[in-house]
């Protein structure tokens, strides 16, 4: 007897259909699994045999061969257990094989026959819909997540027994209700209303959020750089449903999330010891890195100068392209990485430059520090802002703004941008304007043109710096609700820019 059932392997964050075929014929009782499985797949033989028997079914006392097709795809992990078990049951006539053809099955089995939580159910559900299957059997824990995909029925089962019942039509499958949108997550986000003082960083956060500009916060230890960065997601626009599903899928695959739709923008703050593979994804099997986990959210790199150079350099392509290509052997994986980068750094090795006379760093120290920071990553930073210790009276004063108010401004500014950029597919916000687009979309008034021209003439700006100033000035005007960029916008952007090596350098 032959039976076949669909399941899915997760490749990066994408589902790849895998057909589990089971053939039973007379011979000495054996159970072999072929089809390029890893150790976890080979071990599933024993899990499947025990689970089948412990669920009250009979494991066929004959020659059982299971094949995972396509044979060229490397299969990883225990997610094929349930599909294998059901295919064995179908091939031995214990469940109806024709029903199984319309189902996709996903989940790990315990020896007792329970379906265990397995990461990536959302991606599997998407794959099942794309493959034109009617229903997906998933573990109960993952049902809400899988149900986010429209156009496919989800059968949430707790055990192999229950799954067999669903196939026989005996037991009505437990369909989860519509995924309750977890609004609670936005409420627990830290709010800008907690911040006292910090007028400049608050402004910079709003500009960054409004224009999608990458931001570098500089300041002595303990001034509140991390505190401020954590509040950036709270003023970003809400995720659209499509974005939310994308984010949920990534986090589900990575196993950092269980159940329901993620509605809050992710905030990822990896420790500075992270490897390049950890940051952009990789490993064996390739897994999404922090850059992908921060997709549609904020990637925060605290103590930027402490990160390994190789890790930071690896961020280049993700920043440029919004996705990262990971090539392993003959296969290439694409992981989405469209995030806002916020980095924090001490201004100098001792951290106290700009605080009274406390800094004792010399030219060499500063140069070394700058070199650690410099490079392609800094080129992408449109904004550089110093976070100073708030004054005592500021600590006693009421907060300057709240996330709700700031977000309103940000949303209005984003709307203006979208109205203007409509049709320019290459850019979704000012931060993504390249020089060609900037020339078309950034309209300066006369005084602004003069101010920018003067800055460039006097060598205060490099060509790249000029371009950054244009982008940021555009966002400042958007925040204020103006179509034309004024001289004040340009000058503000000049003050907020990150100075690259070619401009205003120290003694040669």
């Amino acid at each position, binding site marked *: 007897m032959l039976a076949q059932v669909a399941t899915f392997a997760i490749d990066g964050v994408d589902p790849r259909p895998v057909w589990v075929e089971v053939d039973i014929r007379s011979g000495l009782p054996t159970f072999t699994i072929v089809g390029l499985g890893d150790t976890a797949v080979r071990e599933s033989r024993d899990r499947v045999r025990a689970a089948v028997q412990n669920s009250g079914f009979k494991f066929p006392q004959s020659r059982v061969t299971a094949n995972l097709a396509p044979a060229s795809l490397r299969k990883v992990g225990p997610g094929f257990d349930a599909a294998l078990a059901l295919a064995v049951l179908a091939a031995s006539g214990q469940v109806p094989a024709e029903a199984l053809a319309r189902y996709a099955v996903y989940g790990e089995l315990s020896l007792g026959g329970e379906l265990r939580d397995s990461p990536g159910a959302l991606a599997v559900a998407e794959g099942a819909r794309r493959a034109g299957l009617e229903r997906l059997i998933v573990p109960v824990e993952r049902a809400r997540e899988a149900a986010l995909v429209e156009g496919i029925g989800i059968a949430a089962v707790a055990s192999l027994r229950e799954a067999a019942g669903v196939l026989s039509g005996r037991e009505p499958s437990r369909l989860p209700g519509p995924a309750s949108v977890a609004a609670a997550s936005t409420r627990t986000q830290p709010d800008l209303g907690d911040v006292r003082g910090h*007028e*400049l960083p608050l*402004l910079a956060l709003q500009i960054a959020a409004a224009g999608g500009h990458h931001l570098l916060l*500089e*300041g*002595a230890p303990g001034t509140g750089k991390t505190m401020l960065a954590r509040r950036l997601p709270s003023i970003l626009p809400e995720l659209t449903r499509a974005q939310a599903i994308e984010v949920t899928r990534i986090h589900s695959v990575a196993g950092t999330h269980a159940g329901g739709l993620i509605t809050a923008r992710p905030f990822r703050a990896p420790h500075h010891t992270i490897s390049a593979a950890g940051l952009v994804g990789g490993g064996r099997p390739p897994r999404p890195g922090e850059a992908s986990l921060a997709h549609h959210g904020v990637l925060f790199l605290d103590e930027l100068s402490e990160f390994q150079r190789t890790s930071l350099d690896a961020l280049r392509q993700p920043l440029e392209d919004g996705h990262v290509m990971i090539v392993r052997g003959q296969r290439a994986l694409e992981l989405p990485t469209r995030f806002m980068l916020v980095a924090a750094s001490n*201004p*100098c090795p001792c951290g*106290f*430059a*700009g*605080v009274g*006379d406390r*800094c*004792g*760093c*010399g*030219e*060499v120290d*500063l*140069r070394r*520090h700058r070199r650690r920071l410099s490079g392609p990553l800094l080129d992408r930073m449109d904004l550089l802002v*110093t976070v*100073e*210790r*708030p*004054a005592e009276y500021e600590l006693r004063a009421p907060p300057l703004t709240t996330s709700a108010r700031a977000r309103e401004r940000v949303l209005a500014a984003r709307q203006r941008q979208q109205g203007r950029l409509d049709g320019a597919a290459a850019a979704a916000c000012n931060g993504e304007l390249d020089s060609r687009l900037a020339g078309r979309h950034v309209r300066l008034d006369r005084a602004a043109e003069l*101010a920018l021209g*003067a*800055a460039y003439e*006097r060598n*205060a700006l490099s060509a790249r710096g000029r371009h950054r100033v244009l982008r940021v000035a555009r966002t400042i005007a958007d925040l204020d609700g103006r179509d034309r960029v004024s*001289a*004040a916008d340009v*000058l*503000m*952007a*000049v*003050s*907020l820019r990150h*100075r690259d090596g070619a401009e*205003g350098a*120290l*003694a*040669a």
Partner: protein
Amino acid sequence: MTGAPDPERCATRARACEDCLRRSWLLARLGAQFDFARRRGRDLPLVFDLPDARLIGAIAGAARPAVEREYDCFDAQAAAARCIAAGVETICRCDPEYPRRLAAAPGPPAVLHVAGGRDRFLALVAADAVSIVGARRGSPYGLEVARSLGRSLGAAGLTVISGMALGIDSAAHAGTLEASGATVAVLPAGAERPYPASKRALYRRIIRSGVAVSELPPGSASRRWTFPARNRIIAALSAMTVVIEARERSGSLITAAVAEDLGREIGAVPGRVTSALSAGTNDLLAHGARVVRDARDVLDAIFGAGVRTVPALDGGGSVRAELRDLLDAVDGGSDTLGALVGSGRSLEQALTGLAELEVCGRIRREAGGRYVVLIRA
């Protein structure tokens, strides 16, 4: 073995004589031993005055037989060829063109190796030369003063001499180059390559219009003793030595001490009495060094009061009245944004004003978001 240099045997112009080349080789050969001798409390200037044979006897120690053997079979032709290969020209102390001021130094360098042209070097040090020296870890203020002083003196046509060290030295060189002035860098290692290596860009700019010199042959490494030895050349080459920011027992004070011994003018830029960075300079002032506030003070010291004036430089446009206020605030110590905002000035006003000042070259943003007022030359 030969003793004192013999003028008769001096080679042709533009090439050092054999004895001097050998002497210069000897200094490099005894490189490590000099440091030992210094640690044993030997006074370098006295050692430098010794003729070759006695120098070996005094310094070489256990290495003496080997050094003597190598000394005897020294090949001057090969040494000269090495200089040519490294692209440095030489002038030795037997040469009548040898800088007169330098000849007065204690143990004048036998050979000066010049990168950038021997004739240019001679012309530069024949003119009025001022050395500007100071701390490697200068403050933003000190660096700015060094830069501006170099700029003004360069514009006034003086040669600025320094050691191309990090900090004040480099700032002085850079300032001079900004005013299209020529500058001489005296290096503690071979003249054919920059020391410190991180200053290679500055080194290239210096030898485009000025020169880099060293008393050590090409390929020599720096040693502890080569720094004070280099300082004595800086002091001896210049009519006046100006110290900007020196801690107590700083190398810059050695330069000043040599200048004092030679009867040259010494100037120091006053600093805050509470700052360790200014302890050395303030000490010089207390002991009679001239107060140097700007280039005019230097010119007055060399040429007499009011004889030469500092030419006006284009130091950026004039400042509007609204910005004057902001500039004064920065100058007055409210040099971070936090200190500037408030009391009637909004964040936006401060940001735009600072940008305007930065653009017209009146202030510069330093690490940590601190603004420094640039001195207009």
